[in-house]
């Protein structure tokens, strides 16, 4: 299989259809979360959906739904400050699920820590005319961030490089790179600006740029280009980690192909896969039994 065919095949594998079990579960959890938000805060907040599904860069390995929960500017019921809003939303959600507090979002997990793939993003509208909001920031220098989710969605949707973004997300996930999706999307769009390359060349261009010339790449929030400092999500430590990973990827690509960078094509779910797993298990020479500290 030619490299370009492999990349398109892996993209096909990473597509989640609307009737997939993953998206059905996501919708079910989304409705539960939305009900808790409505039961707690009434009709006051505007609740909308963002994340990879809205942007069109969803992949099976990384499908997130952002439930944005924005309160009117003059509504103080959910809290007087952005911090209070963030904490009150967290408190409401924690009664039902495990909640991981991220910089501006709240990640929802089941009581057994199973990931629901849902982030709740609390915020407050800046005015009544636009969709600009302030979000609370639990870390970093500034305590608030001005942003606009519609602009983010548009920026990605209209980029023309969605397939490349999907594959870079896959590379990030499979290599366990702690690198925010938002920064990744902005980087890919910037690196591939006006690119007329095919997907194979696009990916090589991105990896080469990340491996060689990162200091020359700056990213800006399309919702607030001069106002939002993204240095904490594109800092020297992250750049250094990405450089090493990109160099390794290019080296592996040269000798072992995209399969070594992104993984092999996957066998579809079903009895044949279960049989294959049993065969693989039977060939193990160590046959270790799991234990538990208790």
């Amino acid at each position: 299989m030619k490299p370009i065919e492999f990349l398109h095949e892996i993209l096909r594998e990473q597509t989640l259809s609307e009737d997939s079990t993953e998206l059905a579960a996501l919708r079910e959890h989304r409705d539960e979360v939305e009900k808790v938000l409505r039961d707690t805060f009434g009709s006051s907040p505007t609740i909308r959906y963002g994340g990879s599904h809205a942007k069109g860069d969803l992949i099976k390995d990384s499908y997130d739904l952002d439930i944005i929960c924005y309160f009117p500017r003059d509504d103080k019921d959910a809290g007087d400050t952005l911090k209070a809003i963030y904490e009150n939303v967290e408190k409401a959600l924690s009664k039902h699920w495990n909640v991981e507090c991220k910089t501006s979002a709240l990640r929802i997990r089941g009581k057994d820590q199973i990931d629901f793939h849902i982030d709740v993003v609390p915020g407050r509208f800046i005015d009544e005319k636009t969709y600009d909001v302030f979000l609370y920031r639990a870390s970093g220098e500034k305590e608030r961030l001005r942003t606009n989710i519609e602009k983010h969605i548009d920026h990605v949707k209209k980029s023309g490089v969605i397939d490349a973004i999907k594959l870079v997300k896959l590379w990030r996930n499979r290599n366990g790179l702690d690198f925010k999706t938002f920064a990744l999307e902005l980087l890919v769009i910037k690196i591939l600006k006006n690119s007329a390359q095919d997907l194979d060349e696009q990916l090589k261009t991105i990896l080469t740029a990340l491996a060689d010339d990162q200091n020359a790449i700056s990213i800006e929030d399309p919702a607030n280009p001069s106002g939002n400092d993204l240095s904490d999500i594109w800092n020297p430590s992250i750049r250094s980690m990405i450089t090493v990973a990109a160099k390794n990827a290019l080296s592996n690509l040269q000798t072992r192909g995209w399969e070594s960078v992104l993984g092999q094509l996957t066998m579809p779910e079903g009895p044949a896969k279960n049989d294959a797993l049993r065969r693989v298990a039977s060939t193990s020479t160590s046959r270790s039994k799991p234990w538990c500290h208790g």
Partner: protein
Amino acid sequence: MLSVGWPVHQPLEASRGVMDEIHNKLHSLVERYPTLHIVGNELIRGSLPIEEAGSELDRFSVEIDFSPLQQGLLPKVSETGGRIPHHEDRHINVKDGTACVCLPEDYFLRHAGPFDPVTFLDGPVRDFFIGQALVARGDPWPYGEWKHGDAGRGDWLSEFFESLSQIEIKAYLDLLSLKELKGHFICPCGSSRRIRNCHLQFIKLLRKMIPPNKAEEWRLRRR
């Protein structure tokens, strides 16, 4: 079942230079598994595929912390993708989300000599995730499972002694009943190698389970 009483995380003495040696070996590991990469000196992060004949069957996001080796403990393995429920029946410690891929005593018995990260990953870590893939699809654990906590340890100890000949049992009890363990002693496994070059970690763990007074008691009872 033999009764054992041993605090799980009681550290053994620190091994000097262990981490330098491990760090060098981690490069072989990431060479073998290209979607794993080294973070700092002691951590591996990325994803572990389960493959058959060039086809991927499953893949788990993992993080492996090798620093516990400094204290004679096995590396800490975590599944980071939020796929496996944190439940003892899935062999995930609820407290810290780490995976109990195997019984440390069993691992160090099977693998004498210096710790090798590739052997650890190819063996119990891979077995564990193959097991998780099968259990998630409704199968039982492919090689069985140990009971939780000390009950599992006791079962393992019984199986271990049952697998030994009378002469081997004597050799182990003679060694375990000594108040002090010296690296130049001959390993009771029958390899004729010195303990420090053979089952050092295993013997250390065994001595925690069967302290010298208990080993002496068993030794005398056998006469």
